[in-house]
């Protein structure tokens, strides 16, 4: 059954359209992540699903039941939708202790004192703040407050859990632990989770599906691997560089050769393609991730020589900026790379990891693949 | 503190022999006169005064009599001498005791007018009062063709069960004074009781006939209202068998307010006790001559014909001057009133108030 079904959700604020027709189906047990630039409407959509924001258009169906309908202005009370939400700004109740904050939802459900105590303690332990139960939110650090917000949301073991950047203020270690906790919750309770994050790593490791937003619209909805490997538009590809490190863009062309064969022609490679027919040359953008560029110290078969422009060591890995034929490329290598500026290195690129986009529309040429027999790279 | 005491030792006398012309000449130099008044009538007199004596401006402040005592006491103790003329009612003898005896308010009775003034205001009272009113019983003229009450004790009879209204003496000392006077003159009350019921009064744990009267009044279902107006409203708006104790001065408002009421001017043993509107010169009055001139004006000048008197010579109030004709059906002298015994009242009224409070 579909846990959540959104159809044509439109939300305006102050006359400005914020969500411009969102269609989205989230299945029971999905771990759906919303990803998108700051201000694109992720929080707004979450709030709309929760019922805190009225939809001006479209319908929301929760577990087969319509809970909001923009056309008939029907709007079910958020309290009755049975969701949990971690607010981006936490929204802890300043007048209640941590314990009371977390216990509130259980008290509303009229559970027994003993049961509440047990559950609250368990939730607080999960977020590693069991010893702060008697403190007030004002006496906690930012990260501790955020954990209270998480505990408050998970303590009721909700079927649908909405999380708005719940780990943004936690240290790396805690983040990993919390992720594991969320995964466990997801698995053990079969909870449906909608997750908003800016951490792509998080999105990729946690989600079953990811929705990428731009300016109030879903641009791509896919499994994490697919999304990562084949971003639907250039915009998504750009946005979705790991840790913000840009995907390499190279201007290229699709050339229709005699016999209907199509060739890709770019500064760094050229090979035959299939899955497309063309009559004239088509300008495209070729993208490849820095980690898919392999560096060799000496000439390797089908490699292209480059000059090292700059080296950025970054702990576990190193980013190497290269220049070839007037195009700039970034390559990522694990560990400390011992390259020096001005040095010449040789790169090889795997056509499997390349994506081609229409240069005008920026849309992925989805079915275009290197021809099977011609998998080896050909120097332009 | 000490200054007040010093004032008390040697009460200053005010010269009383100046002529109007002398006073006016001086008053014009003083330029104005400041009046503290409990009564709005001062304003009316002021208007005519300023027409008559141009160059002397009258400024009137309206203050309740008890507040005025505090105000003047505090001012004078702080060395501020603001008012020239004081127009005030008595507050259970306190004005006499605490202000006049202490020399804060000074008696002023011009020599040329004094002979025409009735007693007690000529010599006995602490000051001259320009008018006197009193509390008495009012009845509805639609309901009663003749006065339903002749004796205060009538009010304690079953005929008037739940039919007597009074303005709250707790917030209006002048009403309390009436009852205090009854306590003081308990012999009179006892006699009236005998006259009415033909037997000696039986005191049910009370001290004397005065207290007993109050007790029985309550026992008979006395209804206390906020003010005198409310009492007249209660009995005068519609035909009603109820009677009310209200101020005689309210007679002047009867027509305007559409009350069908009449006061009773003869009740046994005595109708009431006078409530006088005194005129004093304030101690160290900065515009003394103007003050005197204004008092003279309110007194009606030497001949009693001065326009300043008009505001005070109304139905329901009496000007205690032999040469002034009252607008009331009975003259002041014919009124059967108890003497206002300031000293005794002053000492007794708290006790009566206590008694009153305990009746509830």
């Amino acid at each position: 059954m579909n846990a959540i079904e959104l159809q044509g959700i439109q939300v305006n604020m102050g006359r400005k359209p914020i969500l411009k027709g969102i269609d989205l189906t989230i299945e029971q047990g999905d771990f759906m992540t919303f990803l998108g630039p700051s201000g694109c409407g992720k929080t707004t959509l979450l709030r709309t699903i929760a019922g805190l924001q009225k939809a001006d258009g479209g319908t929301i169906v929760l577990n087969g039941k319509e809970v909001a309908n923009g056309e008939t202005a029907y709007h079910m009370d958020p309290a009755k939708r049975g969701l949990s939400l971690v607010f981006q700004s936490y929204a802890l109740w300043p007048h209640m202790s941590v314990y009371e904050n977390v216990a509130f939802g259980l008290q509303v459900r009229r559970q027994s004192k003993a049961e509440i105590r047990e559950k609250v303690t368990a939730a607080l332990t999960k977020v590693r703040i069991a010893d702060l139960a008697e403190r007030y939110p004002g006496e906690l650090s930012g990260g501790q407050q955020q954990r209270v917000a998480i505990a408050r949301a998970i303590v009721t073991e909700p079927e649908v859990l909405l999380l708005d950047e719940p780990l943004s203020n936690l240290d790396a270690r805690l983040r990993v632990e919390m992720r594991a906790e969320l995964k466990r919750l997801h698995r053990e309770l079969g909870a449906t989770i909608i997750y908003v994050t800016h951490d792509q790593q998080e999105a990729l490791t946690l989600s079953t599906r990811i929705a990428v937003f731009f300016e109030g619209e879903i641009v791509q909805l896919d499994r994490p691997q697919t999304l990562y490997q084949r971003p639907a538009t250039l915009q998504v590809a750009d946005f979705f560089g790991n840790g913000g490190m840009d995907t390499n863009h190279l201007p290229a062309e699709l050339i229709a050769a005699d016999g209907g064969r199509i060739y890709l022609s770019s500064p760094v490679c050229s090979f035959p393609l299939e899955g497309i027919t063309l009559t004239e040359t088509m300008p495209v953008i070729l993208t490849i991730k820095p980690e898919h560029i392999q560096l060799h110290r000496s000439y390797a078969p089908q490699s292209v020589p480059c000059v090292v422009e700059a080296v950025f060591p970054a702990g576990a890995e190193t980013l190497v900026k290269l220049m070839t034929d007037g195009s700039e490329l970034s390559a990522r290598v694990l560990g400390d790379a011992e390259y020096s500026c001005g040095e010449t290195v040789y790169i090889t690129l795997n056509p499997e990891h390349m994506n081609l986009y229409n240069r005008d529309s920026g849309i992925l040429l989805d079915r275009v693949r290197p021809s099977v027999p011609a998998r080896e790279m050909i120097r332009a | 503190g000490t200054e007040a005491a010093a004032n008390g030792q040697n009460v200053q006398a005010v010269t009383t022999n100046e002529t109007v012309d002398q006073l006016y000449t001086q008053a014009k130099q003083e330029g104005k006169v400041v009046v503290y008044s409990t009564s709005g009538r001062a304003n009316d007199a002021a208007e005519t005064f300023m027409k008559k004596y141009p160059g002397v401006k009258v400024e009137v402040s309206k203050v309740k009599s008890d507040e005025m005592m505090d105000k003047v006491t505090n001012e004078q103790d702080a060395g501020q001498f603001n008012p020239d003329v004081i127009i005030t009612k008595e507050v259970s003898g306190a004005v006499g005791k605490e202000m006049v005896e202490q020399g804060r308010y000074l008696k002023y009775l011009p020599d040329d007018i004094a002979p025409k003034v009735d007693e007690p205001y000529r010599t006995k009272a602490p000051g001259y009062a320009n008018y006197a009113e009193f509390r008495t019983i009012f009845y509805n003229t639609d309901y009663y063709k003749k006065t339903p009450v002749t004796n205060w004790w009538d009010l304690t009879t079953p005929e008037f069960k739940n039919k007597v209204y009074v303005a709250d003496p707790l917030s209006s000392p002048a009403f309390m004074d009436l009852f205090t006077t009854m306590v003081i003159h308990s012999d009179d009350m006892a006699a009236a009781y005998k006259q009415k019921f033909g037997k000696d009064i039986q005191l049910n744990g009370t001290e004397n006939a005065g207290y007993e009267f109050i007790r029985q009044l309550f026992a008979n279902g006395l209804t206390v209202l906020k003010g005198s107006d409310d009492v007249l409203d209660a009995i005068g708006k519609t035909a009603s068998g109820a009677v009310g104790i209200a101020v005689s001065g309210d007679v002047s408002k009867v027509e305007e307010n559409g009350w069908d009421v009449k006061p009773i001017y003869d009740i046994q043993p005595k109708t009431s006790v006078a409530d006088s509107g005194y005129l004093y010169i304030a101690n160290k009055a900065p515009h003394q001559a103007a003050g005197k001139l204004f008092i003279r004006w309110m007194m009606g000048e030497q001949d009693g014909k001065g326009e300043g008197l008009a505001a005070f010579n109304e139905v329901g109030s009496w000007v205690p001057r032999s040469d002034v004709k009252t607008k009331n059906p009975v003259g002041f002298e014919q009124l059967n009133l108890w003497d206002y015994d300031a000293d005794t009242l002053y000492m007794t009224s708290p006790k009566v108030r206590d008694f009153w409070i305990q009746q509830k």
Partner: protein
Amino acid sequence: MSSKSLQPISLKRNRSRLWNQVTGWLRNPVNLIGTIGLLFLAYTIIWPVIEILIATFVWKQQDMRITAAANPGHFTFYHWQRVLASEISPSLFYKPILHASAVAVTVSFISMVLGCGLAWLVTRTDLPFKKGITFLAVIPYLLPSWVIAQAWLTFFKNEKIGGTPGILQSLTHMSTPDWLAYGFVPIVASLSIHDSVYFFLLVGAALSSMNSQLEEAASMSGAGRARILRRIVFPLMLPAILSGFILTFTRAISSYGVPAILGTPVDFYMISTMLYSSMRARLTTEAHVLSLMLMLISMLMIYMNHRIVGRQRSFVTVTGKDSHKTLMPLGRLRRPMAAVTVVLMTLVSVVPLLILLVQTFMLREGVYTADNWTLHYWLGGSISGINSGEKGVLQNPIFLLALRNSLWIAAISSVIAAVVGLILGYVAARGKQTWIGRMVDQVSFFPYLIPGISLSAIYITMFAKPHFIVPALYGTVWLIILITVVKELPFTVKAGSASVMQIGGELEESAQISGASWWTRFRRILLPLNRKSLLSAFLLVFIGAMKETELIIMLVTPRTETLTTLTFEYVEKGYTQLTNVVLMIMIAIVILVYYLATKYGKADLTTGIGGQ
């Protein structure tokens, strides 16, 4: 521990430590302003209270009247014993205080429900006609409370007090029961109608700036509306609600006008009746003991308030992460609710106002004939036979003077009282854990309970001559302004502190980091954030100052005559229409001020802090 050679150094260090501690302490605005504030309060409030207190232990000349044992100038417990432990104390003190407390508690609760409920509807829901309702809510406060009591009588009066029967009785031909016409019920009703505006404005200001995510979070936890109100909104509004409670409580317990009209016919006396009576009977000391007892009761209330507010850690609802203000949808109830609210409020506020207004155009009260309509009471000259020839209000020579004085006094004192109240409220709120904050809070509350007459009598002595650096203010409007400010401090300080408690400390800190001095912070951050509470304070003080008589009647001199002293005169003489004309003029002024304040002060209760 310290060896001898180290002593000079450690001594020096100790000295500089002490110095730094002192300067550091003073540099904290709470302490500095608190100290200045306390000095001000000490002079204007504590001193008078101490004088009153001392006076209750000394025999006075007048006491000879009550007991022969009196020994003027000497120490005695007599007055306390008389009030608290004599045969008269049940009637003089215990019964009235019981009545008064019962009335005060009930009034506070009812006002709380009315005021808070209305405030919530107006600020947190999507109720229509909010602005109109907000305006209507202020109107009952414009009318003097005795007018409401009178209106109550007009409606519910029965034959007990004679006169024309009440409207209800005339319509139904059934005798209105006494309990409905007089005593406890009508007193409570009148006072509640009149005073619930305190709750409305205080809580409304607090609610309108509350971050709605706090409610939303509770909603997400599955809590229904009632529970959200009870568990989230109510506790967070606690400072405002408790302030409202204390204010209405003390106002009710010390109210005089309403119980005098509605209580006396059934011998329902309250402590204020006794107090007033003692005053009038020149038993000043007795009055002082009574008012000190009232102060004691209120101090207990404030102490309890501290226990509640102090224990709870935080009431911060305005934080550095703001969120969109969402309104609770009333759903199908939206229109019916608005209709009911508007109708009810029109009944209690507009109808009495209109009746008063109509009366001013009627030559004789209650006569509805064409020739009875007149502008006489507004513009007419002297006609003998109507109010003893009293001229229309606008013709009264002192009207213009009084109007100017009134406006001047009300405007200046309300601005000063509101700002001083906010500043002292800041001290009370931010210093709620320190003695200085608590002192300011407690002390600033006394003026409500010092009988206006006593306070003004003492002020005459204090300000008749220059003292220290204080000039002789007596005889100028400045003393009236001062006393009005002082008398209204309890309200403005409470409003200020309740409001400041809501504001997160980091908002001030971030301004501090930006290099702003305390004054800049106050002006640019606190003042605008507290704008609504400030404007409420301003408005109520303005109205209060326009209505005030008791307090200033002794301080006015002919040059400082005000509109209220004019009314006072009319009331004394029973000139109903003229009184109403002045009342209407005052109300018109207040309405104009209200309009300007909400329009230009951007203090519309129905909107949030920033943006919409």
